[in-house]
Each structure stands twice: as structure tokens, then as C-alpha cells.
């Protein structure tokens, strides 16, 4: 880890200005990912601008039934918030499925969205990786990739986005707010992450130097009946090999509205629009759920060792949708 400067920002505009003054500077939130990457040498910032003390640590319930979550709200506070648990239970479940109690107390909502992939080649400086060293190649395509992407990946990069929280946020149409020297801006989560293409090192559509200030969840009554389930290679404290966030509104046995997002399958939380189209207006039964999953997974491009994820995601989506339908029937 090289030597670096450190400054604590007092307000949002000051933070943005401090970052702009140094092209090698990074914002420091909870540090759970950035400090680790600095230790492995993937990140070598010249300066850290600490944004943890910024007044962005509140969760407000908006009048229309949505939520506004500050960027420095910790994962723990987000998960424990009664409004989140009541209106978007899958978001609480997703956050609680991630990392550990200690890390959730540190990690922030803004940082969670910006966390980097856990691909082992990304963190191994001795190996090629297009995300870390553009143009060096992708070691995973021909190497270890049993937990890599099946959707939206290219030959340039097959890494997955590790966030659990982001999967629920994707399902609920979250909008990311940010601040730049030129003023504030907004990005729907659907547009927040860039397609992999041949530039996997460019991960988000945030303007350079932008500071995430918060996430807005628009009102979504359907989210009151929602679930998040995560499959991983041990029972806790591990990244997903597949996860599903889903919400269903069922009336008279017919799906009125559905939300579905998949995790650990792509370079970003994967909103399953094709599946939702199949679900909406269809009978809330196993056949519909299977057809919906198949519609979404029609676009998969598995690698030799991660084809099981296609089965896993189909089964998991059907299982979660079925659980929600059973819950609705009770």
C-alpha cells in the first residue's frame, strides 16, 4: 500500500471539491472494499476523502410511500429500518444476506453500489484482467469461472457484481442521486451500471468525480410482499452463486404486478424484465413461473464450468415466486 493523503469532508460540496483537486483521489466510505483493495494493491489512491461524516445518514419515508436513503446510511441501519422492513422486506433480507454483522455496520449504501467484483483474477496482480488492467486479457474465460457471469458478459470480462442489496434495489426501481462540481444529478439503477462490452473497467455511468448522495426508492406497493433468497457455497458469510429478489401482487389467482431481479449472474444486478412480462397478467402458478424464468434465461451464455447457474437460477426464481404465491394465498 503506497502512502496517501487523508482528508475528512465536512459537507457534500466540499467533498466533491476535494476529490476534484486530485485525480488519484478516492472517496472513503465504510472502507470494507476500498481498504481491502488497497491492501491487495488493486487500488493505489494518492488521497482519500473520507465521506463517512457527511450528513447523508438518514432514511426518510417519502409522502408517496417511497423511501429516500442517504448514501452513508450503513447496511445495518438500512436493514433494521422499520419502513424498509415494512415496505420493501426483500431489501432488508438482501442486505442481511450480505457479508457479516461487523461489515454491515461499516459498509454504506453508496459504497455498496460501487463495490468491485470478487473475481479472484481481479485481485491477483500477477494475472491478466481487463477490469483491473485494460487490454491485458481475461483470465477467467479459460480459467476458474464456476462462479462467473452467465448473462450480459463478453469475452472481455465475465465477472459478476457481488452486491446483494443491489439486486433488491434493482427490483424496486431505485434511483441513485449524486453530486458533482456542476451540481446534482440522478441515475436510475437500470442505467447506473454500464454494459460490459469491451470496456469492463468502466463500470458505472456516474460522471467523473461524482459523489453518490443517496438512493430513492419510488413507492411500490407490490414490494410489501417480496422476498430475497441467496444461494452460496456455505450457509453464511459468503458471496452468492445465485440470488433472487422477487415481489408479487396477485389478485384472483392472476399476477397483477411482478418484480424480479437476479444476483451473481452478471456484471450488474440483473433486472428480469423478460420474466416480468411473462408474469404480468398470467395465472400465478408453477407453469407461469417456469415460463417466466425460461424467458429471462433464454439469453444466457454460460461458460464450460458455470452452466449449473442456469438450472440454479431457474429453480431459485420458481421457488421464490412459488413461496410468494403461497404466502399470498394464506
Amino acid at each position: 500500500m503506497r502512502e496517501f493523503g487523508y482528508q475528512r469532508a465536512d459537507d457534500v460540496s466540499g467533498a466533491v471539491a476535494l476529490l476534484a483537486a486530485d485525480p488519484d483521489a478516492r472517496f472513503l466510505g465504510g472502507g470494507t472494499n476500498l481498504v481491502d483493495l488497497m491492501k491487495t494493491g488493486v487500488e493505489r489512491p494518492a488521497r482519500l476523502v473520507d465521506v463517512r461524516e457527511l450528513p447523508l445518514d438518514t432514511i426518510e419515508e417519502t409522502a408517496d410511500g417511497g423511501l429516500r436513503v442517504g448514501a452513508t446510511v450503513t447496511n445495518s441501519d438500512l436493514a433494521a429500518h422499520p419502513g424498509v422492513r415494512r415496505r420493501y422486506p426483500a431489501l432488508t433480507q438482501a442486505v442481511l444476506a450480505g457479508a457479516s454483522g461487523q461489515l454491515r455496520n461499516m459498509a454504506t449504501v453508496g459504497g455498496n453500489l460501487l463495490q468491485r467484483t470478487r473475481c479472484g483474477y481481479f485481485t491477483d496482480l500477477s494475472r491478466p484482467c481487463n477490469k483491473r488492467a485494460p487490454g491485458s486479457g481475461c483470465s477467467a474465460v479459460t480459467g476458474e469461472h464456476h462462479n462467473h457471469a452467465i448473462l450480459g458478459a463478453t469475452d472481455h470480462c465475465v465477472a459478476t457484481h457481488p452486491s446483494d442489496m443491489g439486486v433488491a434495489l434493482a427490483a424496486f426501481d431505485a434511483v441513485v442521486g449524486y453530486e458533482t462540481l456542476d451540481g446534482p444529478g440522478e441515475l436510475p439503477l437500470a442505467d447506473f451500471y454500464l454494459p460490459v462490452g469491451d470496456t469492463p473497467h468502466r463500470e458505472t455511468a456516474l460522471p467523473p468525480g461524482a459523489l453518490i448522495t443517496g438512493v430513492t426508492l419510488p413507492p411500490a406497493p407490490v414490494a410489501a410482499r417480496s422476498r430475497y433468497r441467496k444461494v452460496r457455497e456455505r450457509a453464511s458469510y459468503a458471496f452468492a452463486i445465485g440470488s433472487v429478489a422477487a415481489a408479487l401482487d396477485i389478485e384472483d389467482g392472476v399476477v397483477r404486478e411482478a418484480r424480479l431481479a437476479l444476483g451473481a449472474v452478471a456484471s450488474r444486478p440483473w433486472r428480469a424484465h423478460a420474466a416480468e412480462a411473462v408474469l404480468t397478467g398470467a395465472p400465478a402458478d408453477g407453469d407461469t413461473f417456469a415460463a417466466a424464468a425460461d424467458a429471462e434465461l433464454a439469453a444466457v451464455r454460460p461458460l464450460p464450468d458455470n452452466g449449473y447457474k442456469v438450472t440454479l437460477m431457474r429453480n431459485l426464481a420458481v421457488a421464490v415466486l412459488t413461496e410468494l404465491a403461497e404466502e399470498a394465498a394464506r
Partner: protein
Amino acid sequence: MTTATSGRTRLSGVVGTAHTRVEGRDKVTGAARYAGEIPFADLAHGWLVLSTVARGRVRAVETDPVLAMPGVLAVLHHGNAPRLVTDYAGLMGMTPDPTAAVFQQDRVPHVGWPVALVVAETPEQAREAAEALVVAYDEEPHDTELTADHPDAHPAGGVMPAETGKGDLAAGLAASAAVVDAEYTTPEEHHSMMEPHAATALWDGGRLEVVDSNQGTTWIQGELASMFSLDASAVRVRSEHIGGGFGSKGLRAHQVAAVMAATELQRPVRVVMTRRQMFSLAGYRSPTTQRVRLGSDPDGRLLALEHRSLSRTSSVYEFVEPSAGVARVMYDADAHYTANHVVPLDVPSPTFMRAPGEAPGSFAIESALDELAERLGVDPVELRLRNEPEVGPVSGLPFSTRNLDACFREGARRFGWAGRDPRPGVRRDGRWLLGTGTAAASFHSGAGPSTATVTAQADGTFTVRISAADIGTGARTALTLVAADALEVAPDRVRVRIGDSDFGPAMIAGGSMGTRSWAWAVTEAAGELRERLALGVTVPPEGITVRSDTTAALGTLAQKERHSFGAQFAEVAVDTATGEVRVRRMLGIFAAGRIVNPLTARNQLVGGMVWGISMALHEEAVRDRTSGGLYAPDLAGYHVATNADVGDVQADWVDDLDPDDPVGIKGVGEIGVVGAAAAVANAVRHATGVRHRHLPIRPDRVLSAASAGGGAADA
């Protein structure tokens, strides 16, 4: 001392009663200091630099830019390091692993080979300089892949004969009513104890002092003395608290590098491995490929048994994972063949890891027995009871004690085995299929020569000194109880000091032999001291000290098969839609000799079973074929069981007293992991109908098997 049970007096004996750890208060308050935590004035920090290529030569180490960095004091590498002696006979007569004899050659035999040590004033400076150090290599093609038909495979014994054989295998198999012929594999596994290897070396008054975390202070003292051409009396190694060992904490690169740097700089130098470095410097369990062939009569009595195991070693050191040794103790047949082979590859040197041989070997053979039981329609417990040998199947020697049948009967009773429906895939709880499985366990019981002193102090207390190591086993507490009984005093009058090579030679904490070996020496010295005090002597101010040495007594021990045994039972839940496997409960019943401290022994046995769960479901180091290095070598990439992975796991024991041991101890350190993975895999088979012959039983394997054969296929 706090007693967890009744406060028994000395007259009835404290061995066999539960006692909390004598150092427990220090451990729960953070006062216990481990190797990297002892302060030294003027301490410098060393950081190892490891190779990034799998095979080749170091062409250049560009030290100048690094030496100019802030705080950097020295860069040691093969071009400037002092020469070491490496052709001496160390532990068990073996020359040391060259991985530990750092900076003696420009050859690079694997990724993660130590190529330099950067020493600086602070750890931050040392780390940055080590990361900045440019090392140029001439790279050569490498071979890191263990394949069953590798041309360099050869028989290798290690601690036992490479091959054993008797009878006509082909005829035995041909005459059998049922035959199992299957291949099983286990992956590369890492000890991953919580405390990374750490050593501080310094010269003090012409004597080399090393504060280390190891499994035997006189072992490391001897190795360092030999390597640096020093008299053993000029080297003192201390290791008071050890944050886990499991076979990994022996002679390693960090101690040798620290001694080199301390000698070079003439000031204390500490070298601590990073977690990532441990994955190439700390040893590991080799992957294994095992073939088992079993043939039996219709009742399940074995007529033919063959167990062949292939493991790998490094190109610089031969270590054998002797997985095929299990059947030499466990099962007999007229035709009986076992063989351990090894392939040298461009990988780090493997080493002893909790139950070397038995852990992977029992997975294979205890899975194969389960396959045989199913084929015959014989209950798996009954099958094992029908194959209890009278004498050692290979040695022909009598067993000191065995009691495996008692373990199975007690275990089956408590687990609720009776009435088990043998059909797979018929029990369900919501999305989970349930199944139960069993397996047998054995692990060698031995004792190594040890010395101890016991001193009667004038104030009526006693001090035991022995260079034992408490790596979490509770040895310090066990020896306190053993000494108290031998002295016929209450344990609170006994103070046990361990972890200091100045206390004289003693067995290492290894091979499940530590407590038995040390207890023997302590018993002898304490017994003699008690007899002397019984004569009514007055204890002078300097005390009365009696020294023991068990070398002669051990030499007179009759030749016998001496082992701990056990019966493992597991219940698992499997969701075949997601591939998730959970171990809901496990029960292990062991015949492991006299249990000195039930509180800590039970914990250790359960811990071994948790290792079995972890081995069955989680652990796997993945080696990248292109680079020859590990993929994601850290504790997020290498999964060990978390708290949530461990359900209701219980261990208990049957009466089992080794009549030839003064305390009756056998050893509990390793037996808990043996058979545990097989019990889990057998339970997964029972739950799903799928036989998993390749560990770990990952979700993708469960899923692929379920989708391929609808539950009927094998994985």
C-alpha cells in the same frame, strides 16, 4: 481455577473431571499474548516477497530502488543471504523442506516461493517496499496438475510402507457376491488456523532467541541450530500461546528469514505471514485421487480389498498423503492391497494436516463401504460390525484396545439409527430432502520421548516444566490435572509452564501424541517427587526438582496396534433445486483412551467433526492451470465452515483404557475429523440417491447430478 463440575478433592483424582482452561481467563480478556504480540525495543519488521511464476529462475532482484524507500533497512535474497546447512536429519529423520531454507538458490519451484525479505522500521513501510520490489524471472513451462495416470507417479512411503499386499485380488473379487470399484477424489485443503505464522528473532547475550508460534519449541530449536550451525544450547525458542496449528506450525520460511535478518541487522526482527502468503508457505493437504475395490460374500464379509491413493508433492520435497493406510488398520480380507503413490509437481510442498492420510483415506473407503452395504442390502452399521478384525490386518499384531463395536452400538442407539429406512430420497421436510449416514474412524495412538521437570516449592506449590505446546488442545490444563493426580495434590497447587525449549526435549503437538507423551513424562517426574516428599524431607528455598525422561520406558512398550477408534453419524438436509446441503446433526462416539479433561476433549472431538463438515461441503483450494498459482487464496475464496454451517454436533466416548499407558491416554486431536466427511457424503446419498465421490459436495455438483439423472446418477 474454576471447575465446571463438582469440586472434587485430589483423593478421588481430577483426571477425568471437567476443568476450564487454566489460561482461559487470559484468553477471554485478551491478555494472552501470541507470538507476534510480545513487544521488543527497536523491533524491525520483515515482509516476505514471493515468486509470481511457477517454475524458472530468479534473474535479478532489483534492490536499489527499494533500499532507497523510507524506513527500509535491508533486502535479503539468494544473492546476499547467508548460506545454511540443509543436509541434516530433522524431524523423523527427514531433511528440511527447502521452502523453509530461504534464499539459498535462484531456482523457483512453484508460485509463492520465497524470493526475498524486505526489512523496514514499520510494517507499513516493509509492506510497501516488498510490494514495490521488482524481481525478474526466467520462466519455464510448469506442470501443476495431478492426474491419475501421471508418468512421474511412484510409490512413496513417508511415515509408513508405500505398499502392502497379500492374497489373490482378482480371485477374491471374482468370488465376491458384490463388488464396488470406484474412484474418489479430495481437493487441495489448507490448515487455515486463525493465527498466521509469526516469529521474532533476536540475539541476546550471544544467544539466539526466537519467539514463535509453533507446535514444538525444541523441534524448531533443533532445526534452527542445525541450519545456522549453532550449538542447540545457543538457541532458545519460545511459543507460549499458539493460535491453532493442525500440522502447519513447524519449521517455515518466516522463522529462518527472521533469524537471518536479526543476524544481519543485529536487532530484533519480526516476520509475520500474510493470510495470502500462508496459502503457499504454510503447507497444505495434497489433493488425492483414490481407487477403492471391495468384494464381499453375500453377508458383507470382505473377501477382497484394494485401496490405492495418489497424492502430489513439490519438486523439492517429498511429502506423502498416506490415504491408503486406513485399511491396514480398519478392515481385513484374504486379498488385501494398499498403495500410496506420489507425483512431484511444480507446486508448494504439502505437509501434515489434521489426520494426514486418514482424513481423505477414510472418505474413500468409508464411502465405498456404504456403497457395498447398499448393494448388498446390509445395514451400514451392521456391515462394519461384521468386518471387525481380530488383529491388525497387515501387521498381525493384537490391538491394545479397539472397542469400535461399542462405539457403533452406542452411537446407533443415541442417534436413533434403528428403524432407518434405507431407501434414498424418501424423507422430506419442506424443500429439504433428509438423509442419514455413518462411517467408522481410526487414528494412530502413539507417544514420543519427552522430558519434564517437576519442582516442589517451599511454599507448598509445584511447578511443572515441559516444552509442550498448547495449540488449542487444552494441553496445559490436561497436564495440570495429570500432575495434580500424580502428586496427589489439588490442581490449584500446580503450575504448568510450557512452550520453552529451555525446558528440554519433548514430543511435539502432533500426531495426536502430544498429551499422551507429555503426560507420561509429567507422571514419572511427579510420581518420583511425591515419593521423595513422602519421606518427610523439608523443601529448601530453591525447591526440590525431579527430572524425567521417557525414552527408555517407551522403548520397552510391547508391539501392538494402538489406535483411537470412532463411529460417526450424520443427518443432512439437501435442497436439490438449489444444491444446498446442511448438516443438521452429527454424533460421534469414540474409543479414545482415557479422557483427561472431558470439557476440552469433547470440544476438540467436536472441532474435528466440524472439520469433517467443512471438508465434505466447503473446502477446496483451486489451482489455476495457466499460472500454477491458487485462485483467490484468502478466507473469502477458501471457505471453511462458519457457525451457521454447524448444527447440533455432539461427541462422546465409551470406556477405553490403554493398559500400557501410565495415564491410559490415547489421543483425541485427529480422530474427530476421520470418517466425518464420509458420514456426511453417505447421508447425502441417503437423502438424494446421488453418490458424491468428489469433495467438496458443492451446490453445483448437487445441482448437476440432480438435473442429469433425476436423482439416480452419481456425481
